C-alpha cells in the first residue's frame, strides 16, 4: 500500500515536471490563437529557444541568461511569423511549418559550427542549470503521513520555472478576462473588424499577442534544455509543440482548462517514461514503442472523440483584410 502511494507520488511528480513545457507552449499558443493567429510553429520556437538557452547558459554560466537568450531567439521567430501572417497576410499554417523546419535546421547548423558535437551543446553544470527549490518546511513536514509526501515530494523540490509556469496560468486568465488588453485580444480573434472600427489597430494587437507567445515559448524551450535536461539535443522538443496545440484545442482556448489538459498529457508522458514495458498479467507485454507513441495516439483519440464541439476563435487563421 505504502509502496504504491510512493509510486503514485513519484508518477505525479514526474507528470508535473513533464507538463511544464506543454503548459508554457499551450499558453503561448493560447495568446496567439486568441488573437486570431494560428500557430503551429510553437514547436520550432521552443526548439530554437532551447538551443539558444543552452548556448547562452553554457557561455555565461548562468541559467537565467540562458532563459533570456532563449526568449530572444523565440521572439525573433515569433516576429517572422507575425511578418508572414499579419503584415503580409500569408498562410499561417505554412508559415508555422517553415518556422519549424528553420528551427530544426538552424539549431543543428549553428550547434555543429559552434560546438562540433553533432548539433548538441556541451553538457550544462553548476549555475548554468536550474536547481530545485525546496519550499519552506518541506524537510520538516516530510514525515507527516500522506500530506507530508504530497507537500515535500510532489509540490516542493521543483525548478523555479515550474512554479513560474503554474503562476502564469492565473495571470493569463486575469489578463484575458479582467483587463482592457484581454478584452481587445479576445475581440480581435473573434472579429477583427469590430476592433478596427473601434479605432484600435488590429496589426498592433496581434503583434503584441505574438510577443507574449514568443516569450512563453522561449521560457518553455529554456526549461527543456536548462532545467529538464542538461543541454540541448537535436530535435529535443519531439513534437511537444504539436501536443500543446492539441491540448489547447482540448482546453477550448482557456487558461485553466489548458492547465488541466497539459497535466493530463504530462501524466501520459510520465507513464510512458516510467513504465516503458508494461506486463499485463504475465500474458502480454506492451512494447516500448507503444508506450512511446502513447502520447501521440492519445492526442489523436482526444481530438477525435472527447473534445466535443471545440469552437476556435472565429477569425483564426484568416489574415485581416479591410472590407465592408
Amino acid at each position, binding site marked *: 500500500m505504502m509502496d504504491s502511494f510512493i509510486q503514485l507520488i513519484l508518477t505525479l511528480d514526474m507528470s508535473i515536471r513533464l507538463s511544464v513545457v506543454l503548459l508554457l507552449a499551450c499558453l503561448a499558443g493560447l495568446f496567439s490563437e486568441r488573437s486570431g493567429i494560428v500557430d503551429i510553429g510553437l514547436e520550432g520556437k521552443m526548439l530554437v529557444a532551447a538551443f539558444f538557452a543552452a548556448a547562452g547558459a553554457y557561455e555565461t554560466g548562468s541559467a537565467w541568461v540562458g532563459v533570456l537568450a532563449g526568449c530572444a531567439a523565440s521572439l525573433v521567430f515569433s516576429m517572422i511569423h507575425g511578418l508572414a501572417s499579419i503584415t503580409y497576410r500569408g498562410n499561417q499554417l505554412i508559415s508555422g511549418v517553415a518556422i519549424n523546419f528553420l528551427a530544426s535546421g538552424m539549431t543543428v547548423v549553428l550547434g555543429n*559550427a559552434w560546438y562540433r558535437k553533432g548539433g548538441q551543446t556541451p553538457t550544462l553544470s553548476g549555475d548554468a542549470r536550474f536547481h530545485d527549490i525546496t519550499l519552506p518546511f518541506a524537510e520538516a513536514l516530510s514525515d507527516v503521513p500522506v500530506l507530508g509526501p504530497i507537500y515535500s515530494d510532489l509540490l516542493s523540490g521543483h525548478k523555479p520555472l515550474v512554479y513560474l509556469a503554474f503562476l502564469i496560468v492565473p495571470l493569463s486568465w486575469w489578463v484575458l478576462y479582467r483587463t482592457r488588453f484581454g478584452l481587445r485580444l479576445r475581440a480581435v480573434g473573434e472579429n477583427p473588424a469590430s476592433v478596427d472600427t473601434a479605432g484600435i489597430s488590429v496589426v498592433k494587437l496581434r503583434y503584441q499577442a505574438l510577443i507574449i507567445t514568443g516569450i512563453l515559448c522561449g521560457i518553455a524551450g529554456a526549461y527543456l534544455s536548462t532545467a529538464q535536461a542538461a543541454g540541448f539535443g537535436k530535435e529535443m522538443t519531439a513534437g511537444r509543440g504539436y501536443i500543446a496545440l492539441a491540448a489547447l484545442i482540448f482546453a477550448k482556448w482557456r487558461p485553466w482548462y489548458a492547465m488541466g489538459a497539459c497535466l493530463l498529457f504530462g501524466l501520459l508522458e510520465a507513464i510512458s517514461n516510467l513504465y516503458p514495458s508494461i506486463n499485463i498479467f504475465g500474458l502480454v507485454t506492451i512494447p516500448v514503442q507503444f508506450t512511446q507513441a502513447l502520447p501521440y495516439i492519445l492526442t489523436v483519440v482526444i481530438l477525435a472523440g472527447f473534445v466535443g464541439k471545440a469552437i476556435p476563435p472565429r477569425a483564426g487563421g484568416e489574415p485581416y483584410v479591410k472590407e465592408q
Partner: protein
Amino acid sequence: MDKMPRWADVFLVPFINLCLAFMVSGLVVLAIGENPFDAIYFMVKGALGSTSGIGYTLYYATNYIFTGLAVAVAFHARLFNIGGEGQAIVAGIGVAVVLLLFNWPHWMLALPFAIIGGGSFGALWAAIPAYLQAKRGSHIVITTIMFNFIGAALIGYLLNGILKNPSSQNAETRAFGPGAHLPTAHEILAPLGIEFSKSAPLNIAFILALICAVLVWVLIWRTRLGFQIRAFGQNEDAAKYAGISAVKITIIAMLISGALAGMLAVNVVMGEQERLIKEFVEGAGFVGIAVALMGRSHPFGIVLAALLFGMLTQGGFELLWEMPTVSKELVLVIQALIILFTGALDNMVRDPVERIFLRLRKGRS
C-alpha cells in the same frame, strides 16, 4: 482584370522569392564562417558535376516528386497533409511485406505489386486522419503530424520484432530477393552505350515519378474527380450546394495523397536499399511541402522544384566533405527559407511587383 501578366505570377514572383531564400541562406553560411559563393560552387559541382552526382540528384528528385505531388493533391482539396513522412514510412512496410512474401521471379512482376503494397499502406495511413477530419472534425494538420510519430514507432516496433532479420545486429529486414531488384540508370543506359555511374541509386522509379506527375495533371484538370476536388478546395459551401460530398472528397483526396507519398518507398526501399531500414524517408515527406509550394501545386512546377531540391540535397551532402563546419541540416534551413518566402511571405514580393505592373500599365494607357 488581372493585376499582372501570367508569366510574372507563375515565374517572376517565385523566382524572386527563391533568390531571397538563397540570399538569406548565404547569410547563414557566412555567419558560420564560410564563404557562401564557395558553398554554391561545391553544391552545384556535387549535384551536377559527375554522372554520380546527377544520379543522386535525380534519385532524390524522384522522392520529392512523389511527396510534392502528394502534398499538392491534398492542397487542391484545401487539406494540408503534413503526414507525407509517416505515410511514406508505413508504405515502406507495405513494400517490404510484398517483396518479402514471395521470391519474385522478375522485377517487372514485382514492381506492380510493390506499387500496390506501398500505395495502399500509404493511403491507409492518410485515410485515418482524413476520416477523423471529415467525420469527427479533428484538425488534419495535427493528426497527420501525430501519425508521423506513430508511424515511426510502428516501423521501429516491426523492425525489432517480426520483420527483423535475425542474422543482423541492426533493426532491418533481410534483403529482398534478386528478382525484386529494380534496374538502375547504369543498367538501363549501359546497353545504349551511355556511361553512367554505377554507384548512383537512380533507378526506374524516376520514370514512375514522371508518369505520376502526368497522371496527377490529368486527374486534377481533366477528370470529374479533379473538378470536384478543386471545387471542394476552393469553396466548401458551394461544393455542398453542388452535391459534392465533403466526406468523400476529403477521404479520396487524402487516399491519393497518401498513395503518392507511399511511392517514395518504391524508389528508396525497393530501388535503393533493397531491404527495409528504419530511417529511410529522411525528411523527404516534409520536403514535399516546400516542393508543392514552389511548384504552385502544379505537376510541372513540382517536377522542376523537385529537381532543384534534389540538387540541394545532393549538393548539400557533397558540401559536407568540402566544408567541415557545415552540416547537412543546412539543406533543411534552405528548404525552410524557401517555404517561408514562397509560401508565407509571398505577398512581400507580390505586392510591390503588382504595383510596378499597375504603374507600367497606367503609364502606357
